[in-house]
């Protein structure tokens, strides 16, 4: 290199110096800012899955939450959940919308205006707890049952803790019944003597006759039911199962069935005994089973054959006599027949269905009815009955606690319950949402949504195992919320005395942890596991062995929480038969039902089932049939726009309420599909709906979806205006009303 600075060298060095000065100082700063901006705009996209429990219905299915940068973005089924096995229904998938609901309550608040005016002032948790404690203490000094604590039915350690607090406070915990197998337990026990929930092995049945069981909607445990149904229809290595659905209206299950028979609810029991009569007349019952366990079958046979001759059954039900006989023969001819029933069916129909299963030898066999291995949960009080007493004025509580909106949705007449509840001096709501509870409450203590909560729930018993769904919060609390049990613990501390003594926990977490310690010490079962491992554990236990999944108590708790629950796949295969042997056979139900009118016992009718229609006369000639769509929840749901979107999709009527009619009935009124109609009942209420003409629907009836309109609910719920409850009375019964119809 030469010592002489050339022009080219000068320009290079000069340029470098300028660049160094500018980029080195200001430039570098600019670049740093740009980097920072880029960092702010681009999320790191860290993905994580956590397990939790779906609480949109009592089934308590396992859920896997997909978190991106700790924000929940998707819910899907937990593959280890023994009854869901990785599936999740529409309600479960929509639950994430509850977490992001823009109308969620942001923190504790006290009512400042009149009830229903929606005027609130935010308060601190300390103030809220102090206020509740003063009311609870005051109520506790009053005679019993001055306080009612309503919640949707739930079993498990957390539910027990909730009940313990209120019982210690002299209150009555009231549970709003859910349609789980527990509803069938009493009738099952009456027949067999087995004090356990009955389980239906739909998956392995070959021919199923279903009396209104909403298999494709929300039967017993919806995800399990739909999975079992899928296998029943399409299992490898055997022929497709056949389904006959007996339903008053064209339900989703009825659409999927091989055969749908529209029979009104009060006549279904007649048809069930009609089938039993057909089987017995033609000597097609399972003789081997009945010879061993039939008990006093001769008397039952005489009664059924005499009371339900096929021609009379055909006249009563509208089902042709040849169809009745064919149904009976098809059932008896199938290798593994099974008869199903809805959990909230009348007792008479449940009895008839269990009797049919007994005649078919379907007790304690594959594809039949078996007894749950799980110990039966305590039967809770009937919430609808308590609400009915309040409406009737025979029960007037001073303090009402509402854990969710279930109590306010169960009663048929909104005006009736509102008036009854308004009489209470103080109402506290623990609901996380702006729903009907906010409309009536004096104090709002919002709890976290299920994604933000601890869970320790006993699911309905549908699989051959004892289960407990256990999970920790999937995400941190988004708003200023507190778990109800944590709040109750604080209230108990303030109240002292018996209430404080009854609350041994500090939080939901402490209760769940204690439960896991109990399970660890039990030396049986293990964390939820895949199907093969569950089968292996079950086989081991059958042989008297047990293998610990983990070495320490802490590792066990961790494994259970990561798996989403604990189950013990223990199963005694001949539980029913052993019990029947011990008690000398089946106790058959009375097929000749006692009539409410006081006349001699006779065939099952609307009268015998206490289902006389209210207001049925020339003025109101149509029978009102209500049904619950799969997307409607007893509590929650008002904040899930996707569920409203799904509501009427099969009928092409999203966000609308529709009424289903028989073509002949529609023709008599000059109504066609899509017509706007108005239904009016004897109670004076009316409902506007869109008519939908359905081939095969019961004649002289109109079917309407039970979709509660929630004007006090969130922004999505307010968009649905029609409420079928306006047609009903106030005692909680849904299926006994007559209406008249006119074009709107």
């Amino acid at each position, binding site marked *: 290199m030469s010592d002489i600075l050339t022009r080219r060298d000068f320009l290079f060095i000069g340029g470098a110096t300028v660049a160094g000065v500018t980029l080195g100082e200001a430039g570098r700063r600019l670049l740093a800012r740009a980097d920072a901006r880029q960092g702010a705009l681009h999320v790191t996209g860290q993905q994580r899955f956590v397990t939790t429990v779906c609480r949109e219905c009592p089934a308590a299915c396992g859920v896997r939450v997909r978190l991106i940068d700790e924000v929940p973005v998707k819910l899907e089924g937990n593959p280890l959940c023994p009854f869901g096995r990785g599936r999740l229904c529409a309600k479960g998938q929509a639950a994430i919308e509850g977490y992001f609901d823009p109308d969620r309550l942001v923190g504790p608040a006290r009512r400042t205006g009149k009830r229903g005016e929606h005027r609130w002032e935010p308060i601190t948790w300390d103030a809220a707890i102090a206020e509740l404690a003063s009311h609870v203490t005051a109520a506790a000094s009053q005679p019993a049952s001055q306080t009612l604590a309503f919640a949707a039915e739930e079993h498990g350690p957390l539910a027990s803790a909730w009940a313990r607090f209120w019982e210690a406070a002299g209150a009555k915990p009231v549970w709003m019944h859910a349609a789980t197998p527990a509803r069938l337990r009493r009738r099952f026990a009456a027949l067999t003597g087995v004090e356990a929930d009955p389980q239906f092995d739909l998956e392995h049945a070959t021919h199923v006759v279903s009396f209104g069981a909403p298999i494709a909607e929300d039967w017993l445990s919806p995800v399990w039911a739909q999975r079992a149904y899928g296998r029943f229809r399409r299992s490898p290595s055997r022929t497709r199962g056949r389904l006959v659905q007996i339903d008053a209206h064209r339900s989703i299950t009825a659409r999927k069935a091989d055969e749908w028979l529209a029979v009104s609810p009060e006549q279904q029991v007649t048809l069930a005994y009609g089938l039993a009569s057909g089987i017995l007349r033609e000597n097609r019952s399972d003789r081997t089973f009945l010879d061993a366990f039939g008990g006093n079958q001769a008397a039952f046979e005489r009664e059924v054959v005499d009371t339900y001759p096929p021609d009379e059954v055909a006249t009563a039900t509208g089902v042709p006599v040849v169809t009745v006989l064919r149904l009976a023969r098809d059932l008896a001819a199938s290798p593994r027949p099974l008869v199903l029933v809805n959990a909230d069916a009348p007792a008479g129909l449940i009895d008839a269905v269990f009797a049919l299963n007994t005649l078919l030898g379907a007790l304690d066999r594959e594809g039949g009815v078996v007894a749950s291995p799980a110990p039966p949960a305590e039967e809770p009080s009937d919430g609808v009955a308590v609400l009915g007493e309040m409406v009737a004025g025979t029960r007037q509580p001073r303090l009402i606690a509402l854990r969710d909106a279930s109590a306010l949705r169960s009663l048929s007449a909104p005006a009736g319950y509102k008036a009854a509840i308004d009489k209470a001096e103080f109402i506290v709501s623990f609901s996380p949402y702006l729903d009907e509870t906010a409309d009536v409450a004096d104090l709002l203590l919002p709890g976290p949504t299920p994604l933000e909560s601890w869970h320790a729930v006993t699911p309905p018993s549908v699989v051959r195992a004892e289960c407990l769904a256990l999970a920790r919060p999937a995400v941190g609390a988004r708003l200023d919320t507190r778990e109800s049990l944590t709040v109750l613990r604080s209230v108990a501390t303030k109240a002292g005395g018996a209430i404080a003594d009854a609350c041994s926990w500090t939080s939901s977490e402490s209760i769940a942890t204690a439960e896991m310690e109990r399970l660890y010490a039990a030396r*049986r079962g293990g964390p939820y596991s895949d199907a093969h491992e569950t*089968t292996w554990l079950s*086989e081991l236990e059958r042989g008297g*062995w047990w*293998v*610990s999944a983990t070495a320490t108590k802490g590792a066990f708790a961790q494994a259970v929480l990561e798996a989403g629950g604990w189950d013990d796949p223990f199963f005694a295969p001949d539980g029913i038969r*052993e019990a029947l042997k011990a008690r000398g056979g089946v106790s058959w139900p009375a097929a000749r039902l006692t009539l409410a009118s006081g006349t001699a016992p006779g065939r099952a009718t609307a009268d015998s089932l206490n289902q006389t229609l209210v207001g049925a006369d020339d003025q109101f000639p149509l029978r009102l049939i209500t049904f619950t769509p799969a997307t409607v929840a007893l509590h929650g749901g008002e904040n899930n726009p996707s569920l409203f979107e799904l509501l009427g999709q099969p009928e092409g009527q999203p966000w609308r309420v529709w009424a289903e009619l028989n073509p002949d009935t529609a023709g008599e009124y000059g109504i066609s599909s899509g017509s706007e109609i108005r239904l009016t009942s004897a109670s004076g209420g009316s409902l506007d709906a869109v008519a939908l003409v359905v081939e095969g629907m019961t004649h002289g009836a109109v079917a309407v979806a039970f979709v509660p309109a929630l004007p006090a609910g969130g922004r999505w719920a307010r968009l649905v205006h029609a409420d079928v409850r306006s047609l009903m009375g106030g005692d909680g019964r849904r299926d006994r009303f007559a209406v008249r119809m006119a074009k709107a």
Partner: protein
Amino acid sequence: MERRAMCTRVGGWLMLLGLGTGLAITVISAQTPGSVALTVALPDEPTAGARLFVQKGCVRCHALGGDEVGMGPDLGRIHFPGTALDLAGSFWNHAPVMAEKMRESKIQQPTLDSGEMADLLAFLTAYRYYVAQVGGPANPVVGKSLFEQKGCSLCHGEAATFDKKGPSLTKYRGRMSAIVLAQTMWNHGSEMAQVMRASGVPWPTFAGGEMGDLLAYLQIGSGGTSTDRVYFEPGSPRRGQGLFTSKGCLQCHAIAGVGGHPGPDLGDRGRDLLGSVASIAGLMWNHSRPMEAESRRRGLARVTFSGQEMADIIAYLYFVNYANVRAVPAHGAQIFSQKCAVCHSAGGGPRVGPDLTAIQQLDDPIALFAAMWNHSSRMEQELRRRGLSWPRLAQGEAADLAAFLVARRPASQPAVR
């Protein structure tokens, strides 16, 4: 020169063979000329293979005694009465058929390390013990008549009553492990014998599945509840082996020639012991009275077991021949030369395949078969290309081959896993 080189080479081989044999295998007796005992460790946790059976996809083709019909044979219905290496030989023999089926089904062949191979072998051996034998064939009706026939009803009743000398057996109702009954009967056998002698009740013995039937009768009436269940962790054959020595059983019973007398050599009675927990418990019960007399004669203390100890000792008895592997290395050399030498050498350097003595970490017979299994797919293709048949191993040949190969390894360590 050539002769000297040959002598040196043969001498070297023999020396190496002798050294390797001395280190890797232990010559115990000369039941078969040149036979040696290969040391295979007893499993500590035979159920560990259950998870592997699923993880490795075996469950996709093989059922385990259930109703499902798989592509492959139902392994729950097959008895595996031989040693661990006989079972490993069966693994090897089914490899080509399995590979073809897996190709058809587009399934990747699972690979196994030596630990996994050992777990799977132990699990398949134990499966019937833990499940099929225990839960299946017992008949409570037969058990009820046995309860009368064997005189149990003379001392035991449904409830504790003054006219019965023994306690009520209702506490065994429910899902009680067979271990509980075995342990109770064993530990109280002495007192029972005294009472029976005084009452003139003959000492009952149990054959075949009679003890299982009796247990099924005692368990009946559980009612399907989850209460009253007493489970035990599956016994550990390895712990059971230790107990067999520490409790003094080895003083009277030999296992494959090792141990004392006058009790029978349990290695010779291995097939009798391949039964359910209840049937093994029955055998133990049957010999408890003469055993007690012999113990008294020798001045030995009475042997009692805790529940888990009983589970371990019964598991060991079930597995008594599993690790009792005898092999003839010379026969193994012949097998190698007939079936493997086309592609492999044992110390002669790589050919089509590698020199089997040069591969790392094949000092253990189980590791050897795991490696054989892992290369079976490639080997099957090579054999197919050359038009050669699959080298199948008859019973005992797997052990002979393993003994030969382990012995040929330079400076190999004792074959203890």
